[in-house]
């Protein structure tokens, strides 16, 4: 679709296409964007129409999660504390997009600092699910998924720390890819939990996901965890290779209690579809799955307590009122600037790293993380990829779970192990439950995104789910 869109824009007008998107956003009830860079983006589109540039993304608009630094465009992580912060530099992925001719249309709403599964913790208010405005779009990249599902943007970038790309992709009925840790540079991604997160594309199709991944993946010397250039594949090549040679593992631990029966059925139906296309499947076990949530939250909160320490209002961001002495001013700015979920995670993370608790919590979590990683290594020795639901249930109602953090955390049960293991995973639409999209998660070996995308492409070639669009669109 993006490839065709590029040709359409070249034949027609980038400005006209982009204006239509902005019109749609103006009429939208979703609240998917925190900032629209309308003037600039339209200016670039006009410029493009006058003298078309070359590039994979030439003239194509894209929406960017508000946690990714964009030079000259306010970047807040949907937090009050970063209100007014305009980065003086572009994230690596933004440089790559611009180099390929993409037009940044604006920044999308998210859970504050990517801490959430519903986009309800945003200081800008929740984003609504385009399939049912009373429901959440998922999170934390809720705005990025909702705008693509509703046709407000042809594609977007999100970031995935514990499912933040895949969860909203699942809830909004679009494709979300979490690349292998190290495949996409994190330079410019505002850190929530830096050992877990990756920037990933959100698109309508697997093909577009490959298209966008081709643009953003690759080595960046500014990110020390960035994989060598050789780890990057050519994701559009061989996309139509089919699944005949593939052995799919279905993890026992990802079914049963707590999983919506309609979701379970949709996953099994998907496995049958893949089987019908020539793949084989077998059951596998990921025995440490039950420790994944606790492990994830200890690591993520510990890292966030340190990552968010820099927000003191001194150099950038919000600095209300008069300065008093350092300690007072610092506490006042942080008390007023962070929302309750950010505070909760900073407090819990600080506790987990404290003298006397470090060994019991953080260090233990690192050890269990290794076990979980080994689960995936063992399973993926036997099978080529794993299939499960992305989320145990479809999108829930706004306000339904936000007051009960623990039940909200439970929703991440199938997504967080992937981040702990650092492996790649993709969520693709695989059905509907009472009109709400269901996501199928495919998990692969490190740096085998090509295989994931090939399977997703094969699936989408024979299923209609990704072609349905919500009524708001």
């Amino acid at each position, binding site marked *: 679709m993006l490839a065709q869109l590029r040709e359409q824009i070249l034949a027609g007008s980038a400005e006209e296409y982009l204006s239509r998107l902005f019109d749609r956003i103006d009429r939208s009830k979703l609240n998917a964007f925190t900032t629209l860079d309308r003037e600039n983006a339209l200016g670039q589109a006009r410029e493009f129409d006058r003298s078309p540039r070359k590039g994979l993304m030439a003239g194509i608009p894209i929406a960017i999660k508000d946690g990714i*630094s964009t030079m000259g465009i306010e970047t807040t992580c949907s937090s009050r504390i970063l209100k007014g912060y305009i980065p*003086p*530099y572009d994230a690596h992925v933004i440089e790559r997009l611009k180099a390929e001719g993409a037009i940044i249309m604006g920044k999308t709403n998210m859970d504050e600092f990517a801490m959430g599964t519903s986009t309800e913790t945003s200081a800008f208010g929740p984003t609504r699910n385009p399939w049912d405005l009373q429901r959440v779009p998922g999170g934390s990249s809720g705005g990025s998924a909702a705008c693509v599902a509703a046709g407000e943007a042809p594609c977007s970038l999100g970031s995935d720390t514990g499912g933040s790309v895949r969860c909203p992709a699942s809830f909004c009925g679009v494709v979300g890819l979490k690349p292998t840790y190290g495949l996409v540079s994190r*330079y410019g991604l505002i850190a929530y939990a830096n050992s877990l997160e990756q920037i990933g594309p959100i698109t309508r199709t697997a093909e577009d996901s490959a298209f966008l991944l081709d643009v953003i993946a690759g080595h960046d010397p500014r*990110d020390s965890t960035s994989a060598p250039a050789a780890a990057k594949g050519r994701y559009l090549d061989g996309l139509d290779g089919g699944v005949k040679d593939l052995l799919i593992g279905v993890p026992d631990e990802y079914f049963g209690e707590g999983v919506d029966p309609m979701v379970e059925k949709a996953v099994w139906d998907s496995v049958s579809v893949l089987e019908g296309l020539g793949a084989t499947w077998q059951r596998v076990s990921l025995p440490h799955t039950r420790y994944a949530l606790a492990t994830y939250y200890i690591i993520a909160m510990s890292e966030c*307590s340190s990552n968010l*320490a820099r927000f003191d209002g*001194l*150099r950038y961001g919000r600095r209300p009122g008069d300065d008093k002495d350092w300690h007072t001013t610092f506490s006042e700015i942080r008390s007023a600037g962070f929302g309750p979920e950010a505070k909760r995670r900073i407090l819990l993370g600080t506790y987990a790293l404290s003298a006397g608790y*470090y060994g019991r919590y953080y260090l233990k979590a690192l050890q269990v993380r290794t076990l979980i990683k080994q689960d995936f290594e063992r399973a993926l020795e036997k099978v080529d990829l794993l299939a499960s639901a992305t989320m145990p249930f479809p999108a829930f109602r706004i306000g339904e779970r936000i007051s009960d953090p623990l039940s909200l955390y439970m929703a991440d049960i199938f997504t967080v192990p992937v981040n702990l293991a650092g492996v790649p995973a993709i969520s693709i639409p695989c059905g509907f439950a009472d009109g709400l999209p269901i996501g199928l998660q495919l998990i692969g070996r490190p740096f085998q995104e090509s295989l994931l995308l090939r399977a997703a492409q094969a699936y989408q070639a024979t299923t209609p789910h990704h072609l349905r669009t919500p009524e708001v669109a």
Partner: protein
Amino acid sequence: MDDVIIGLEVHVQLNRLSSKLFCGCSTDYHNDPPNSHTCPVCLGLPGSLPVINRKAVEFSIRVGLALNCRIEQQTMFYRKNYYYPDLPKGFQISQYDFPLATGGHIMIKGEDGERNIRITRAHMEEDPGRLVHAGTIDRAKYTMVDYNRCGMPLLEVVTEPDLRSPKEARAFLDKLRTILEYLDVFDGSLEGSMRVDSNISLAGGDRAEVKNISSFKGVEKALSYEITRQRNLRRRNIRVVQETRHFDELRNVTVSIRSKEEAHDYRYFPEMDLVPIRVADWVPNVQASLPELPDARRDRFREQYGISDDHAKSLTSEIKVADFYEQVASRTDPRLAAVWIADVLKGELNYRSLGIDRFSPDHMVEIVSMLASQEITEDGAVILLRTLLDRKIPSLVDTEKPGATKAGGQLSVRVCDLVGSLGLARAGDQAVRAAVRDAVAECASAVSDYRSGNERAINFVVGVVMKKTRGRASPAEAHRMVQEEIEKGS
């Protein structure tokens, strides 16, 4: 002072590196406006990531090896979490478990002979920014932050509590500085390049930590004050409180820092934005490229040039002096050069607070050579040194060579010209003999005193000879000749 126990934590800026520890910003900020050497990384802007300066790791390994440390197989970085305005990320990237270097030692000149001081560890970390108070720290209306220093590569060298006096602490620091300069990783002349925290206690007592002393003299003074304070407490049967104290350089006292601020839990945990470095693989190459270190050079000087151990030590305690000596010694009498550089030139430089780069090795070669061939006297040589250092060159020389200074601050003057214009050529034997004859004839009463047994009376006659020759005779020579002359006449 056998009961004094001192351990040091020395923060050394690896300021011979051209870029900071985790970003590409230049380290050459000392003459530039505040916050002009910054970037998203060292300002800790959201989304920025650190990248290790590999040269800094190499420098640190160099120091580790020179301090006789073990280099870890693999080293890694940790975050040290605390909030302060000079720390833009809210944590400092430092090391914790698996520091780069552990378990070393160096020899220093102790209170009673050479002493071995054990090094616990040496680890890398980034320097925070610098706070600039508008006025004094307690009265300032506001404080400004300069992040130019932020991210400067630091090496923290921690000793075991092996030092037994402020003087030994000073000797350790001097030795450490010498080694760092030999390794070409450090320039001690730059402001804030070495900062010291010290732990000090009396045997059986609790220890106090004196933080952030920024000069070597300060270390001696702070420790001396602290010993006196702790002894006074002990005399009055008051326990020393284990606490952190600040050294007030103006008043020369240490003051307690409020315990609230000191109750730090730094919540160290691994810095996942950096990957562990297999430093063991680097060691063979770094080892092979290590320069000759002060102790080895001292031994070689003694053997190669046949000079005394004291001279060898004095000449090697600063790499520039040692290099200077070798330039001179290779072209003239090395023993005489040792004496004149170690005993005379260093003193004259010290007196003027000048570095050895202010004096030309060519001039030194000329002076030593003329001394060796007895063309000038020792007095004359001292006059030459002082004239060259003070640049009081007679106008004759100046007009002959307009613009008599070179870019390096060296005078382009030939010593032999200067000897001529200052009239310092040693008097010939004939002239001295004539002066001696005249002096003996003129000083009849002193001569008769001498003959009647007052040995010291001869000095008066020698003095007259020196006056007559305007110092161009050797006093010893003159003394011998006066003696001969008197005995001849008796």
